[in-house]
């Protein structure tokens, strides 16, 4: 956990520097704009420029990240003293299986739409990760998309994307929409 604490602080510090750099960018339509011209308070009475707010906040974030590193060096916080592992083997496997599932879920939406991806994700999680009975997994995986269809597509008229499965829904549209 000690190493993770430092690495995270470094990542935050680097992000702050990137954000400060990015805040100083002038609008793209004005190639003459000088970087960092927009972070101060303008003297012509138009007040602070567009980069003022994010620039100084990112600067504050950088200072705070450095403070975290100082605390790390002094071993002043519980996390900077902790010898525990940041993510044990269970945590790693959990992250891999759950987040992997979520990422696959979002990718699948692109191809087979929400109503194809939701049951697959639920079945994967409940049957393989949760080790529940096949019956429970199938029942929940089937019920949720049906509920979603009536709630979103029918009641709220928010048509969720269906990807390549769209033709299958045309008869349903005819009945309900």
């Amino acid at each position, binding site marked *: *956990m000690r190493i*993770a*604490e430092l690495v*995270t602080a470094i990542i935050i510090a680097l992000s*702050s520097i990137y*954000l400060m750099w*990015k*805040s100083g*960018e002038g*609008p793209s339509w004005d190639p003459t704009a000088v970087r960092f011209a*927009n972070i101060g*308070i*303008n*003297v012509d*009475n*138009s*007040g*602070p420029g*567009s*980069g*003022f*707010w*994010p620039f100084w*906040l*990112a600067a*504050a*974030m950088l200072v*705070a990240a450095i*403070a*975290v590193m100082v*605390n790390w060096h002094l071993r002043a*916080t519980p*996390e900077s003293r902790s010898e525990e592992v940041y*993510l044990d083997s269970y945590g790693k496997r*959990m*992250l891999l299986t*759950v*987040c992997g599932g*979520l*990422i696959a*879920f*979002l990718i699948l*939406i*692109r191809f087979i739409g*929400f109503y194809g991806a939701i049951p697959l*994700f*639920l079945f994967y*999680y*409940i049957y393989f990760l*949760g080790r*529940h009975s096949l019956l429970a997994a199938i029942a*929940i995986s089937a019920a*949720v998309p049906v509920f*979603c269809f009536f*709630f*979103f597509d029918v*009641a*709220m008229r*928010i048509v*969720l994307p269906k990807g390549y499965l769209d033709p299958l829904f045309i008869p349903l549209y005819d009945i309900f929409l």
Partner: protein
Amino acid sequence: MDVITLLIDGIFTALQPLNLGLALLGVVIGLFVGAMPGLGSVNGVAILLPFTFVIQQITGSVSSPMIFLAAIYYGAMYGGAISSITLGIPGASTAVATTFDGRPLALQGKADRALVIAALASFVGGTVSTILFTGAAPLLASVALKFGNPEIFALMLLAFATFVGLGGDDIPKTIISICLGLILSAVGFDIISGAPRLLLFDSTAWFSRGIQFLVLAIGVYGIGEMLWTINSTRYKTEMTEARITLGRMRAALAGASEAWKGTLIGSLLGFFVGILPAAGATPGSLMAYGVAKMVSKDPSKFGHGEPDGVAAPESANNSASTGAMLPMMTLGIPGSPTTAVLLAGMVIWGLTPGPRLFTDQPDFVWPLIGSFYISNLIAVVMNLAFIPLFLRVLRMPFTILAPLIFVLSVVGVFAAYQNIYDVWLMLFFGIGAFFLRILNYPLAPAVLAIVLGPIAEPTLRQSLILSDGSWMIFLNRPIAGPITIVAIVLILLPLVGLIRRRLLRR
């Protein structure tokens, strides 16, 4: 019209079948999310916010979706006690203090008594604070009408200062969280000059519309917190059997008055802590527990199943949740992460939060206040009547609940903005939040900040235009000045403590 007439009107509106049904549904959902470990009021409200559009569409009223969400908020405050007592793990952070004495009572076989005291104390806390709210809100709103940009910015500063000074989390990490939320809220276009800014990695497709509040809130509370709960509980919880029969319930109800002192302390203290911007129900309940222990004749009983030790935090968390609504409704500044979500909801439903709400939108304000009274009543009745049912529901395996919440989060974010980039961004924030959460970075400040950012930045910049760039404008105005000074003191407070400790060590 005077307050009483408006209130009675409001209560009648809240009693209309549709609103009553929404309050009932909200309370049940709230009891459930409150009771499930890993889910709290803020998770429930954030994940279900996208679904309130349909309520608004059906009813055509802006108060109905709010009544629904407020009922979830209340229900969760009641529900948190159920798992604190029977599982020994708080159902929500607001119920942490309830475990201190509620768990020992349960282990002594008195779970029924603890549950009844918790429910009744919650009811008293909720009702006392609602009465205080009804009296204070119109007054505060009329004062707040005179607020200009410098005053509003000073209040924002106070909200963040409260996090730094009283949040109790690591201070540099709290500051990082606040800054991150504020910067994320600035992505997209600068509303004053119209210039695009912070198009991260020069991607217009992803960032030109800005980062929506719900993307961060659901990422943090729907994905990040869930991953964290799975990682820390490993899907396993141990439950104490609570034997609940009608006879035992009646006996417990009769004996509940012994906890009157804790209830009173919690009800009053909770409300005032709740009002503080950004403090909310968690510190409120912890403080109430501490004070109840301090004034008790026999403090050594606390921690070993003292009824006052259950009553004080439970009445306080309900009271504080109403108190937190006060700055949200009158000043447009949320008093807790959950009210930050409610505030964002109000903006999405087309309302302008702030003092003008009371004069411009009485049809929104008074039915909502009326619903506070009714939701509390529903919550205590439902809670007492269905304790055995909730105990059964608590056995619902997390391996079924978690995927359902993931699906709700994904679908909810998509339905709200109809953009798949936002869903990816939500997942990214969620995984990031998980990594930060392990290292004890507080994430509530970031969620609050992304709501307050779009108010804080323009008020700051317009104030500085008004003052020709002089920062003194925040100090030399009669209302903004004292608020700014309190905020600065709160920020410096931990620093003073640090220096004092250093000096003492020498």
